[in-house]
């Protein structure tokens, strides 16, 4: 087996657009859960809204790139309002139930056969990124160095994706150091206390839900730029990967989700490469290459369990500030 290839593939994940998309979605989730204490189990839905809002408005309605982004963000705000209006006055558990259910509803709706004309049904959508790649300022060629070597298209989507991650991190940093962030963190601790100090808790929770949701939507757009839109990608599995990424790095931290996403994808690629290699050279005989995909997620699950036991605050988290205490 070619170890340099295995490690090269794993290290390349550090800057892959998928890693950027997961980091962005996890930053949004950190705004919800880490800072405000909102249990959002439907981050996949916000990502799906980004993906479909973007692709459908370009393919079916002939929107420009920026128009499609605006549509996605608008839809994401509407979705946050629909989720939040009935549930944010209630205890946090209700938001969890409603978000997980509505994310599944959304996935089933876009994959029904009667929606084929609009969403492509279970086949999804593709070839919607031409405007994005037309804007590419990099001339054709190969860029960067091993193991990060990419084509001009791959470079462009990476630059945009990581620029967005940096902007989102800075935004969250500024917001959480502001008095607005103080109110939101107070709500995480005890919303009645914050209410007794004259703050409109409901409005703050709604603003937080929208902010985190819009970040999830932008993540959804970055996620599909290098690939097609597939409804199967937006199941509860995606939501829980985003949760893993956030908890891995530290829920109430700015850098946590970014590093969490990098660690998550490098480990996933590394376990995949190593297991594939070991099966191919006959060291592992009780698995076939088809079974490796699920096995690496079992390993990731074990890793997450170990994390909860030994480092509940995540890699960057301050143990005093946040643990798994929901």
């Amino acid at each position, binding site marked *: 087996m070619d170890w340099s290839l295995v490690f090269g593939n794993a290290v390349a994940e550090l800057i892959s657009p998928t890693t950027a998309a997961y980091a962005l979605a996890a930053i949004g989730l950190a705004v919800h859960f880490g800072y405000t204490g909102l249990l959002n189990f439907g981050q996949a839905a916000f990502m799906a809204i980004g993906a479909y809002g973007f692709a459908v408005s370009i393919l079916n309605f002939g929107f420009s790139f920026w128009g499609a982004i605006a549509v996605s963000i608008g839809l994401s705000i509407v979705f946050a309002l629909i989720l939040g209006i009935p549930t944010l006055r209630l205890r946090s558990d209700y938001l969890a139930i409603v978000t997980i259910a509505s994310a599944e509803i959304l996935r089933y709706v876009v994959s029904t056969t009667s929606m084929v004309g609009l969403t492509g049904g279970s086949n999804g959508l593709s070839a919607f990124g031409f405007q994005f790649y037309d804007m590419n300022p990099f001339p054709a060629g190969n860029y960067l160095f091993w193991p990060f070597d990419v084509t001009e298209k791959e470079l462009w989507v990476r630059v945009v994706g990581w620029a967005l991650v940096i902007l989102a991190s800075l935004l969250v940093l*500024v917001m959480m150091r502001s008095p607005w962030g103080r*109110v939101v*963190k107070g709500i995480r601790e005890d919303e009645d206390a914050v209410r*007794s100090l*004259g703050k*409109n808790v409901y409005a703050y929770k709604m603003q937080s839900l929208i902010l985190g949701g819009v970040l999830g939507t932008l993540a959804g757009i970055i996620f599909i730029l290098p690939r097609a839109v597939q409804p199967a990608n937006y199941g509860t599995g995606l939501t829980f990967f985003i949760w893993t990424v956030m908890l891995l790095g530290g829920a109430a931290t700015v850098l946590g989700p970014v590093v969490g996403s990098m660690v998550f994808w490098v480990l996933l690629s590394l376990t995949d490469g190593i297991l594939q290699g070991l099966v191919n050279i006959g060291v592992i005989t009780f698995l076939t290459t088809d079974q490796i995909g699920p096995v690496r997620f079992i390993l990731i699950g074990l890793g997450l369990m170990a994390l909860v036991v030994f480092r509940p605050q995540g890699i960057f988290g301050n143990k005093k500030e946040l643990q798994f205490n929901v």
Partner: protein
Amino acid sequence: MSNQISLGDASPGCQKVDPILVADNVSRQFGGLTAVNVAHLEIPRGKITALIGPNGAGKTTLFNLLTGFDKPTTGTWTFEGKNLAGVASYKVARLGMVRTFQLTKALSMLTVIENMRLGAQKQPGERFLAAMFRPLWSGFENRITVQAEDLLKRFKLDAKRDDFAAALSGGQRKLLEMARALMAEPKLVMLDEPMAGVNPALTQSLLDHIKDLKSNGTTVLFVEHDMHMVRHISDWVVVMAEGKIVAEGPPADVMKDQAVIDAYLGAHADIDLGTVSIKTVKDGE
């Protein structure tokens, strides 16, 4: 029994010379249980009023109703002439009626100074868009920080300024919650058992703070079980039992009231209410 606070003699539901809060027909039923059933209650402005009564008398429920944390079955009430029935709790606080809780709600994972700053009203940086631009709110932030540090000093919490509130003792959290409520510069502060669980050495300073509030013109309404403290600092005492107001008056008179003795002590009516409290408090004076 004439006095300077009520119009005419003190009696349950009597009118006050200058009421800040007036409640009428406020009731709250939990299923078949009537937790609160107050026909009429006036809280005198600029005075310290104690709300006492045995466990389950409905004191905390009345607090919750008046501050919008619970919805009454019936009733209306006004604060400085403004109708408050059906007004959301955060708006009640903005009007200047700020409460604390029986079970302390210090925001544990925020530092002491951040807890204090949160109490300030009208910080422009608490608005979503303004929060992104520090110059819009940093001046206000500096002012409330000075105010907060001054309050922390008065409550002897200045050494804990940058600690997480979770690191404070139970009594210190009570102090922090009270100081935080004062950051809002309330006209009426409602303290739910401010002394419960506080070390006797701290109770004296808490009592002094409550008296300070009065001298600054703030009206205080507090729930307390310790009769000695009630007698010591309150100008007026309202007694609740089984959801109703059974007696009102200056502390010395109320303690002798047969209805109060019945409500509180039942068979042990021969014990003077003032001596029920723990002796250490007297030692601390």
